[in-house]
């Protein structure tokens, strides 16, 4: 069944915006969605997959290379044709083995022909696309370590049977989870560019609308999809326009100064926060058709770019979202 239309998701604006912004500028570096059960976290990610504009890739390349010369030599690509394929959105299931993630020797060829051949894993398939981990907080530690390493270098290296295989693995990491089931290690937390918190809607009208649409999606699927296709297409066009406009968006010294002072006031670690904040604000400006990053863009981008980067303050029991909001009022009046 085709995924639920992105535009048909009721409410959850921050989550939707965060996802759209990573589609405009993948360098922002992924989204973490944490929140209540049954709020449509994974529905949104799957919807995003269908919304994203297609990419051009070399036919048959296991890691979606854009140019023939980028294809890894072990892949033995006979073709030089380019094909259009949907932006890859690869699911990383919880029970996944290391071999499936990184790729491993092709067992079938080893058995039948006694040959050494590499069978690409999920990281190769996710190259130039998205890697989605549902319930990311329950992922096995050794898989998390492996992902951190690859996300850092943008390259996957596998050494087996005297072979050394490498291929590019640049992907946007999307994670979702419910904090009740376990905390996320801070090292992984920091790797996500943006983070959003979702709660289930608090008013009856919205809730009824959610159920109505979900039900329509399940019971009269084709009709419902056709109804929403124009809205999704519109959003896709807007994302493409924003991507094209992104290099032209100016960020003034004032904007840079604003980003730095917000981060300083919040005491977020390292420079990663500032860079992400600026990138997110730029993507937001491009999305809104502005030519310059304004204070409003920074204000809107700050909560999602910074709330997961704050140090825990034992004497402040307010949530990190409240802390970001409070500092924003003070620093950017």
């Amino acid at each position, binding site marked *: 069944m085709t995924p639920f239309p992105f535009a048909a998701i009721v409410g959850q604006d921050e989550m939707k915006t965060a996802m759209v912004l990573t589609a405009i500028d993948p360098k922002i570096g992924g989204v973490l969605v944490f929140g209540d059960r049954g709020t449509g976290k994974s529905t949104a990610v799957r919807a995003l997959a269908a919304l994203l504009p297609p990419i051009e890739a070399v036919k048959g390349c296991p890691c979606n290379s854009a140019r023939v010369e980028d294809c890894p030599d072990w892949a033995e690509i006979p073709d030089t044709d380019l094909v259009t394929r949907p932006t890859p959105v690869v699911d990383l299931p919880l029970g996944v083995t290391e071999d499936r993630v990184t790729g491993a020797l092709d067992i079938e060829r080893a058995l039948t022909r006694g040959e050494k051949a590499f069978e690409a894993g999920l990281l190769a398939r996710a190259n130039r696309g998205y890697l989605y981990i549902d319930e990311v907080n329950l992922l096995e530690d050794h898989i998390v370590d492996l992902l951190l390493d690859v996300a850092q270098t943008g390259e996957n290296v596998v050494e087996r049977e005297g072979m050394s295989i490498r291929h590019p693995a640049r992907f946007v990491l999307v994670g979702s989870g419910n904090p009740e089931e376990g905390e996320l290690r801070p090292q992984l937390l920091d790797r996500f560019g943006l983070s959003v918190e979702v709660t289930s809607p608090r008013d009856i009208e919205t809730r009824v609308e959610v159920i109505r649409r979900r039900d329509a999606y399940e019971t009269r699927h084709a009709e419902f999809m056709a109804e929403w296709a124009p809205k999704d297409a519109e959003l896709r066009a807007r994302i493409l326009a924003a991507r094209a406009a992104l290099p032209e968006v100016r960020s003034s010294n004032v904007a840079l100064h604003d980003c730095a002072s917000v981060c300083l006031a919040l005491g977020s670690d390292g420079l990663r926060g500032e860079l992400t904040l600026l990138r997110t604000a730029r993507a937001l400006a491009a999305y809104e058709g502005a030519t310059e990053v304004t204070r409003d863009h920074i204000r809107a981008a700050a909560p999602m770019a910074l709330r997961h980067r704050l140090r825990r303050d*034992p004497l402040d029991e307010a949530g990190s979202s409240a802390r970001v909001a409070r500092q924003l009022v003070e620093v950017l009046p």
Partner: protein
Amino acid sequence: MTPFDDTSGLPGRPPRPVADPWARVGLALTLFAIDPDGLRGLWLRARAGPVRDRVVAALAPLRWRKLHPFVSDEALYGGMDLGATLASGAMQRHAGLLEHPGLLALSMAERCPPGLAVRLGQALDHAPQLSLVALDEAAEEGEGLSQALADRLGLFVDLSGLAWGETTDISLPSGPIATAQARLRHIGLTEARMRLTRVAFELGIASLRAPMLALACARAHAAWRAAEVIDEGDMQIAVALTLAHRATHFPEEAPPPDTPPPDTPPEPQEQPDDTDNSALDLPDEMLIEAARAALPPGLLAQLQAARVARGTQGQSGAGAARKSMRRGRPMPARTGKPGAGARIDLIATLRQAAPWQKMRRAMLPGFSPDRLILMPSDIRIKRYQDQTDRVLIFVVDASGSSALARLAEAKGAVELMLAEAYSSRDHVALVTFRGQKADLSLPPTRSLVQTKRRLAGLPGGGATPLASALQVALAAAEQARGHGMTPTLALLTDGRGNIALDGSANRPQAALEAAQLARAIAARGVPSLVIDTSLRPKPALAELAAQMRATLIALPRADARTLSATLGAALGG
């Protein structure tokens, strides 16, 4: 203790309409047989026994495949069938349990670890033809099915109150069920969708899966009646079978005093807008009543206690899970280097090496053909999952304000808890406070006798150095962590701290310090529980509990046994 002899739970509740519980069980099974894909699953809470056997026998024609809480990922998701692969010379997989559509049954579901619960939950979300019966044998309050699963399973059936004599054999008539199945698609849902969504909201159910499941239930019941539209009765059944057990509050009455505070994710009960309450339409009250009638007394409190236990601890049982190289429950082997305490898993290593032999012989022609060629990458090491020991730190207020009678009750409760702690091999520590400051009266120990003796000899009277008590408790918790144990705090007080850390009788200063220390406890992530022992619950103590991110339990006139039951629930048994 059986789950339902606690009738103290919900005072002031109107008498419930009597319904035949066994008939309701039969109805739930029938509806499940009609629409397993819509209802997604059945949460069956019952101890193993003849009554449950009757239900299981009724479900037998649906043919399920069994799961146990420690099923491996390979069994769930499938994997290489080594024997067949080697024999045939080509890759052969064996299918995983989740790959086939149909019904799964999870036995001992109360022991299901969060990882498995989430895996099953994901499978239910993505495979529309898969459904699950969770056989939950929870015996104590605080045990129970993981929320990740409970949220996804439509129906809830509780057999705990039923005696064998009240039950009869249930048979699910296949003919009428098939007829009802054929009708499902033709039933209009518009009005029912609206109503059930509203009712779910009014019952304080945050998840949006709940109204979908209730709708499926109402539709199945309408189909069973051979009706074309869903009527009031269908909706009442749906509310009773799918929504009642999820309720976090009932609109017309104030939350009962022993309802744990909503420090778990924000749920609608925190924001009872006046407009919301007055907007409650009359017809919905009937449905709310249906939910109320479906809940045996005390069940709501019990389910909530389980929810809280999971919220604070993440999982039931003692201590936190910890991976270990040497002892504990075996986990799947993984790649690694031997040494540093790791042991090679010989079988897993051989399995890993086997498929590559032909290739390696071609690569390394010098080896004789009857030798196995192992490479470093084949090596698999053993891993185990172990539980760290838990230490329960009791912080007992022995001041004058915490009147002597209450102190005796607190002592009694602690003693009962001690017996439970002893049986689950927990360590216990005791911090007492009165007069100028708090003392660690008993460092972590497993000695029941010593703790009892120390407790019995505890004098009462004097001022309330609450800040000092929190300080000592926090230090004890940190120290326990340093020794690899998992600390849990239980604070029994009436909440009026009046002595500052420096021993002076400075009330504002004392309150400030107590709040700071409470936040420090929250920041260190020590799971904690605050028991208000005063005769009338104090807002100040609720605030303190919020700052500690602790579960607050107010116990007006509770006896030691109820206190212990509540403690047991909130601490996860």
